[in-house]
């Protein structure tokens, strides 16, 4: 709860700093505030497992772990924002404020214990993102991204809300614990048919939010059109939060009904993997490739929802961490390259390694991690995901996933090949100190989690 309060107040403080033209202090204040929020979140570890405020929120270890990841991801992304927003317009403080509001929504999403809180959390996050996607007002692609995201998001919220209503109609409560008891008490045939419909609709709504196929069609355009930094935020922090919300609901309430929804999720997972990976192969833009790769990673993370149980929570935690830090590196390098060359195609990366060995090296680590090569965090993430699926005897799904992982290696290596083995314009990237810091920290974390996975894999 303290975390949520700190982040909300921080957003207001930043807004006022903008009013007083304290442009220079925006970034330090935001980062310090987020570190404070992170500290407060970690301080509640193992402390307070009872739902608070009449069962509205529950700050258990699950919520704290995901809060910590999302806050860390946001800090890393904010560090990359140095001189980024200034180029778009002078309202820099508002951009920070809206990002922080989105994070406040994410805090609600990872710690809700009541479906009404889930809905409000999802909405706070989504409304902030619709705005962030459209902050480049003179840019057609950005406008298109904002409008498309808004229409699709509003549509999917309709599904989510209708689903929640039907669940309320059958269980007579929004509270997760009550819904769980309802499911357990009526497990042998007494569950209202309305409940199943509600479950399916919630499933559809959440799949929209995490961008799983066949509800993924908004993702590439929105990710490509939005400003790169916002895309980084959307495809890492927001996606993690979506999965946390998904997992929390399904593990707490719907686990006894697994026979009903697991086949659906399996089909969705397989579709997501194939569509994401195969389409990513044909992209000539690095940014669009990352958009499709984020769809395919959503597919891998869906494994956890099939797996259920504590092992699955750990698996999603590891995977989300690995994916977040690796993606942040990729987007950071993309921002640098785009600043110099003006395009986000693969060609921009040609011969990058000659003059910028450090940047090229960190990007290589990130790509290896995304592809799931051993000794990186991405491999550990995939390993846990697959083993949680094997534990549920979903052998065919794992086979499909491994085929897709191999397809993935191909397009991730294209970047590495371009950087090291192709002749380019020998451009020297201007790398500000913050970028160096973020790249170094993320690369080190990727390697550390790859070598010592037990640091985070046994948390919950």
């Amino acid at each position, binding site marked *: 709860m303290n975390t949520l309060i700190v982040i909300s107040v921080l957003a207001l403080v930043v807004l006022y700093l903008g009013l007083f033209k304290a442009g220079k202090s925006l970034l330090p204040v935001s980062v310090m505030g987020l570190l404070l929020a992170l500290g407060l979140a970690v301080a509640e570890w193992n402390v307070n497992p009872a739902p608070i405020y009449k069962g509205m929120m529950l700050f258990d270890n699950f919520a704290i772990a995901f809060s910590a990841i999302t806050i860390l991801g946001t800090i890393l992304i904010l560090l990359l924002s140095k001189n980024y927003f200034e180029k778009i317009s002078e*309202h820099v403080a508002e951009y920070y404020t809206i990002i922080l*509001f989105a994070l406040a929504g994410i805090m609600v999403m990872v710690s809700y214990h009541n479906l009404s809180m889930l809905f409000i959390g999802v909405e706070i996050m989504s409304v902030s993102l619709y*705005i962030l996607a459209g902050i480049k007002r003179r840019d057609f692609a950005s406008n298109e991204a904002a409008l498309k995201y808004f229409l699709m998001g509003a549509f999917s919220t309709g599904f989510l809300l209708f689903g929640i209503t039907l669940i309320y109609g059958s269980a007579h409560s929004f509270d997760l614990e009550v819904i769980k008891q309802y499911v357990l008490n009526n497990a042998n045939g007494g569950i209202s048919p309305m409940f199943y419909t509600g479950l399916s609709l919630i499933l559809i709504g959440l799949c929209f939010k995490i961008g799983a196929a066949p509800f993924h069609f908004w993702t590439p355009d929105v990710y490509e059109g939005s400003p790169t930094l916002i895309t980084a935020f959307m495809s890492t922090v927001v996606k993690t939060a979506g999965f946390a919300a998904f997992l929390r609901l399904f593990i707490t309430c719907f686990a006894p009904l697994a026979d009903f929804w697991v086949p659906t999720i399996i089909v969705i997972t397989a579709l997501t993997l194939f569509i994401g990976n195969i389409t990513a192969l044909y992209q000539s833009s690095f940014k669009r490739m990352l958009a499709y790769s984020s769809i395919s990673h959503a597919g891998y993370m869906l494994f956890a929802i099939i797996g259920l149980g504590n092992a699955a929570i750990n698996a999603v935690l590891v995977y989300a961490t690995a994916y977040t830090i690796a993606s942040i590196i990729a987007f950071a390098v993309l921002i640098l390259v785009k600043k110099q060359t003006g395009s986000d195609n693969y060609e921009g990366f040609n011969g990058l390694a000659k003059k910028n060995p450090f940047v090229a090296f960190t990007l290589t680590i990130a790509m290896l991690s995304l592809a799931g090569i051993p000794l990186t965090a991405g491999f550990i993430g995939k390993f846990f995901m697959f083993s949680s699926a094997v534990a549920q005897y979903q052998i065919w799904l794992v086979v499909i996933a491994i085929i897709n992982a191999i397809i993935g290696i191909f397009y991730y290596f294209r970047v590495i090949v371009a950087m090291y083995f192709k002749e380019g314009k020998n451009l020297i990237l201007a790398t500000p100190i913050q970028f160096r810091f973020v790249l170094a920290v993320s690369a080190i974390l990727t390697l550390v989690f790859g070598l010592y996975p037990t640091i985070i894999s046994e948390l919950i």
Partner: protein
Amino acid sequence: MILFYLVSLLTITFSLLVIFTKNPIYSVLYLIATFFTFTIHYVLLNAQFLAVVNFIVYMGAIMVLFLFVLMLMNLNKETEPMKSTLIKIIAVIAGGSLLVTLIGSFKQLDALGISTINKPEIGLVENLGKVLFSDFLLPFEVSSILLLSAMVGAVLLAKKDKTDNG
């Protein structure tokens, strides 16, 4: 009960007209009629607060906003491009499946017997207020963040830039 069926019939007719008329202005007008029938439904359910809010906010404020946007952007012509047949077929199949699922589950519900709420005064303003400020205090407060975020964003997107040409 007869009143309920009559109003429901009107609701369905009006909402179908919303999507079948070609002229956006007529669509909006039918939408107003649909919302009005919703208000009647709320009154029948003894949910006075919802009825009033629906009447003022949806029928009043939001619909005026709709009409204004339509007039300002001069959309009152039949400018909407036709979708391809394939998309239409897909949409019909998807919508039809949803309809069948919903009808199926509600029909089965009928056989199980509907659980009635035996508190007829539940929708009154007083009770709603009590619930909102006791059990649902936190969501009520947190939604202020949602409104604030939307407000900041609206100002941000609508405000004129110094660097802008327009």
